[in-house]
């Protein structure tokens, strides 16, 4: 148990976030959003805005500088007159103060030739198409055997459609940037991002700069949940505005503007068919997904991919179809793909358990597999069954009465539910530097991001272990693109990818130290022996080749989630009384921050199950609930008793630490566990999220 190294700075407010850097002569940006859902901009009236004292510049498609090569359509800020969705940035003001900028933004008058936006996702949409791949690089469709025929001939068939709404990431810290250009045309960005190196390269491409001329600084980030994985239009806007005003600028996206401009999870419509024998053994699984993208850029959520991993079945089909709508581009949100996909799959498994009369844990055990069903690859490790059994013992599952709608406490109905979790153990190539300082301490540098996950602490522990040094003698510096290039804090890959580079750099440093100090141990007591030059000793690592050489395994973390809910029979209110997650995620580097990751994900899953829904207005074409008063994430009162545990897992096929990612698996399956518990409590099977009093009351 190691407490977060920057705890004190964070709780005392001295940890500095992007917007807080003191910058001389700084100006402020306010953005104007499109007030039509689709159309062309016919004129931009800036006179009233420019007349306001303190306004430095007004930018729009009528005067914005041409960008060089924006890597995606959302970053082509002000490059066209086309409005692709309501809320798109169409103009911006730079002002001496934030208040001036915002008032001037209100005075910018944009005229449009509007058209009716098409924003409703449906399975019979004429523009439905098969994407070339789904996020990040998976095939859109896969098929094995004869799934339709085998399903039709199965003794037990479940054929149901689940839907999930659009959901927004809502990190506490909004997307925020300070942009400064120096006299040589070099750009510095203090940015709230999950990947300094990624912002560096994508912004460089956007403005036609050499990447070495862009520096991105982000030592502390107040959450992202995927929405800060790649730069969003606000970063480009900040850099453009700083150029136009000839001044450094600050731009924090107001919470209300985040709902259109910084990403969200696509709504999904998922048809699932499970065909099984009477003993619950699956013969066929079909998982067909319809979801949305924008007209600006394709984003295809990999919703059906967990179905390629979870259960044995000789006949299988997964498919993804997209509808391009006049909506903001969906993007990554905590466990894209697995989160909506496993909600549906694990709910349907519960339906199959009831259809076959088999306990839902036993059903999952019967369909466990030691090879990844679709690829046929062996799992590097798979401890789903251990998680289910350990969880069942801790939660008190034994003797559960499967009857629904029968456990009353006063006017409340009580029920329990279980669901499995899974998430891939991704890993990306990374670089790192380790230094031995003349004072006996060590410094590790890598452009990784700590978005509140505890990454800094985990990397320090990894470095200290490799260097055989005291944790207090190791300093980890991250969140700066000037450091060795690192992958994004996404795909739960940070600790694995960055950690491997840190291990290799530290090993190389030890080797150097051993060479430099005759008989030296390469450990922490190198100070004062005269062998460390005044400028220190440094070693670097690049894990690209090592990753390419890895053996072929299916690498995934697994877990099991248990929930007990109470449903008020008069009001339909659902409260989660207790929740337990048990995970098998390789070696846990730091139990303190790992537990926070798990229960944080589970809490987000409770939100998904019961609260979260971004409501699209079909007339106007934008999301209506645009602040934390209207978009509900769980409050403390919603999280009564939540716990996470993990089973020991030793997996030699992962990385030097033996770790799998833990940032996302906590949310995967959580909503299904809650939904299954609601069914157990009430007998009502809700197949669309969130589960609310409005949904339940008519059937209670």
């Amino acid at each position, binding site marked *: 148990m190691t407490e977060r190294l920057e705890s004190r700075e964070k709780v005392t407010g001295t940890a500095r976030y992007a917007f807080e850097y003191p910058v001389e002569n700084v100006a402020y940006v306010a953005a104007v959003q499109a007030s039509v859902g689709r159309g062309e901009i016919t004129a931009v009236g800036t006179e009233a805005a420019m007349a306001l004292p303190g306004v430095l510049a007004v930018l729009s498609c009528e005067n914005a500088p041409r960008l060089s090569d924006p890597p995606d359509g959302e970053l082509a800020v002000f490059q066209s007159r086309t409005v692709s969705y309501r809320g798109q940035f169409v103009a911006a003001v730079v002002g001496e103060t934030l208040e001036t900028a915002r*008032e001037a933004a*209100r005075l910018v008058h944009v005229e449009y030739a509007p058209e009716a936006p098409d924003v409703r996702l449906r399975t019979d949409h004429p523009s439905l198409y098969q994407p070339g791949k789904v996020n990040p690089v998976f095939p859109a469709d896969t098929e094995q055997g004869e799934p339709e025929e085998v399903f039709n001939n199965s003794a037990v068939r479940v054929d149901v459609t689940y839907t999930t709404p659009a959901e927004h990431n809502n990190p506490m810290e909004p997307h925020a940037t300070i942009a400064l250009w120096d006299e040589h045309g070099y750009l510095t960005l203090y940015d709230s991002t999950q990947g300094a190196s990624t912002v560096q390269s994508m912004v460089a491409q956007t403005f036609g700069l050499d990447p070495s001329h862009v520096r991105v600084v982000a030592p502390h980030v107040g959450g992202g949940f995927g929405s800060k994985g790649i730069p969003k239009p606000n970063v480009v806007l900040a850099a453009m505005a700083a150029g136009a005003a000839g001044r450094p600028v600050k731009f924090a996206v107001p919470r209300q503007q985040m709902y259109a401009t910084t990403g969200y999870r696509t709504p999904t419509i998922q048809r699932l068919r499970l065909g099984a024998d009477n003993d619950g053994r699956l013969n066929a699984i079909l998982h067909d997904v319809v979801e949305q993208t924008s007209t600006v850029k394709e984003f295809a959520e990999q919703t059906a991919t967990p179905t390629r991993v979870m259960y044995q079945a000789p006949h299988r089909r997964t498919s993804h179809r997209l509808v391009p709508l006049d909506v903001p581009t969906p993007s990554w949100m905590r466990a894209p793909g697995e989160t909506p996909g496993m909600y549906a799959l694990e709910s349907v498994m519960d339906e199959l358990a009831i259809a076959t009369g088999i306990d839902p844990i036993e059903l999952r055990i019967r369909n466990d597999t030691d090879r990844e069903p679709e690829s046929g690859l062996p799992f590097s490790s798979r401890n789903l069954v251990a998680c289910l059994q350990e969880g069942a013992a801790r939660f008190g599952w034994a003797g559960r009465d499967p009857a629904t709608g029968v456990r009353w406490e006063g006017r409340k109905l009580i029920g329990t539910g279980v669901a499995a979790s899974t998430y891939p153990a991704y890993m990306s190539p990374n670089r790192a530097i380790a230094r031995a300082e003349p004072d006996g301490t060590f410094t590790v540098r890598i452009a990784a991001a700590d978005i509140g996950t505890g990454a800094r602490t985990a990397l320090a522990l990894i470095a200290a272990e490799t260097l055989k040094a005291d944790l207090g003698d190791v300093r980890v510096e991250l969140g700066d693109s000037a450091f060795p290039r690192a992958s994004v804090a996404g795909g739960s890959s940070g600790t694995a990818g960055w950690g491997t580079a840190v291990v290799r750099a530290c090993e190389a440093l030890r080797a150097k130290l051993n060479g430099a100090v005759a008989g030296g141990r390469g450990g922490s007591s190198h100070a004062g022996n005269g062998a460390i030059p005044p400028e220190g000793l440094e070693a670097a690592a690049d894990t690209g080749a090592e990753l390419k050489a890895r053996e072929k395994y299916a690498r995934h973390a697994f877990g099991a989630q248990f929930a007990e809910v109470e449903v008020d029979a*008069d009001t339909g209110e659902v*409260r989660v009384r207790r929740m337990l997650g048990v995970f098998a995620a390789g070696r846990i580097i730091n139990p303190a921050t790992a537990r926070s990751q798990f229960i944080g994900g589970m809490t987000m899953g409770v939100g998904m199950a*019961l609260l979260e829904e971004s409501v699209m207005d079909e*007339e*106007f074409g934008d999301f*209506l609930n645009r602040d934390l008063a209207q978009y509900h994430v769980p409050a403390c009162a919603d999280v009564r008793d939540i716990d996470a545990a993990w089973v020991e897992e030793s997996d030699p096929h992962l990385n030097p630490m033996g770790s799998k990612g833990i940032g996302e698996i906590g949310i995967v399956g959580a909503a299904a566990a809650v939904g299954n518990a609601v069914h157990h409590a009430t007998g009502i099977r809700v197949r669309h999220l969130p589960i609310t009093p409005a949904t339940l009351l008519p059937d209670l």
Partner: protein
Amino acid sequence: MRPFTYERATSAEDALTRHDGETYYLGGGTNLVDLMRLGVETPARLVDVAHLPYDEIQLTPDGGLLIGAAMSNSALAADRTVREGHPMLAQAVLAGASGQIRNMATVGGNLLQRTRCSYFQDTAKPCNKRDPGTGCPAREGEHHNLAILGHSEACVATQPSDMAVALSALDASVHVLGRAGERTIPMDEFHRLPDNEPERDTVLEPGDLVTAVEVPPLGMPSRYRKVRERASFAFALVSIAAALDVREGAVRDVRLALGGVAHKPWRAWRAEEALRGRPATRESFLRAAEAELDAAEPLRDNAYKVPLARNLIVRTLTELAERAEAAEPGEGTTS
């Protein structure tokens, strides 16, 4: 945000003299300042009245309470007299917002909260309440948490204050200092139904300053219950303020008000009338609830509020009746 001036009133009379057409009184600012940031409210002048000496509860000669309008919501909810004599009021206040917001929010400001309808809060969309005559997109759009009672073609918004619902059931009255002097407005007449003037939430006239809320003694068990998707920090789907006096199995007196269903706290006069003198049974409560909700005109997506309100009336009255049954006579005033 439109530029504005900020002034501190030195007295209630001084506040009135500083008030012109584009002036807003500022209490805790927990709603007004948000709306100013959104551009929904664009006052030219804010006159701060939060520090005026109306931050206490005085006992009235009849045993009721005179609650100062500048008192914080936290202080009101924590007050022992309120908790003991009018528990539903303390419960209602605590059911609203968060601890931090209740520390800032004043009693007067709480009464004057504006609707949370999302169309009202977005200046890029039409809204008859914000911009009279532009239309009401909520009728056909998103309205799952809007009104089922007393709405009009022009507006289907709901009044968001929990405290106001309890005050309505408590027969409270609002003390107002206006250009013509002091006057008192019964709580049930303070907020309006939208009719053709949804821009007017209340009957207050320009310059009117709320100085206090007077609450008569209650003398029977009471309860505030708020239904919401999130367990805390959410506005009501439906809420109920109820008090019930049962003697020898019959309803001697009853107070019922609903929140989250209308443009004002909905005093359930019909249900109350249907209950007085009737047996305190589930059947009576159900009939009373149905009598009240007969007038409901749910919209496409908020019909669930009708059975929700019905169940809530029956459940809350049943619990209060059970409590009365369990209590010895004369102990009915404790919660």
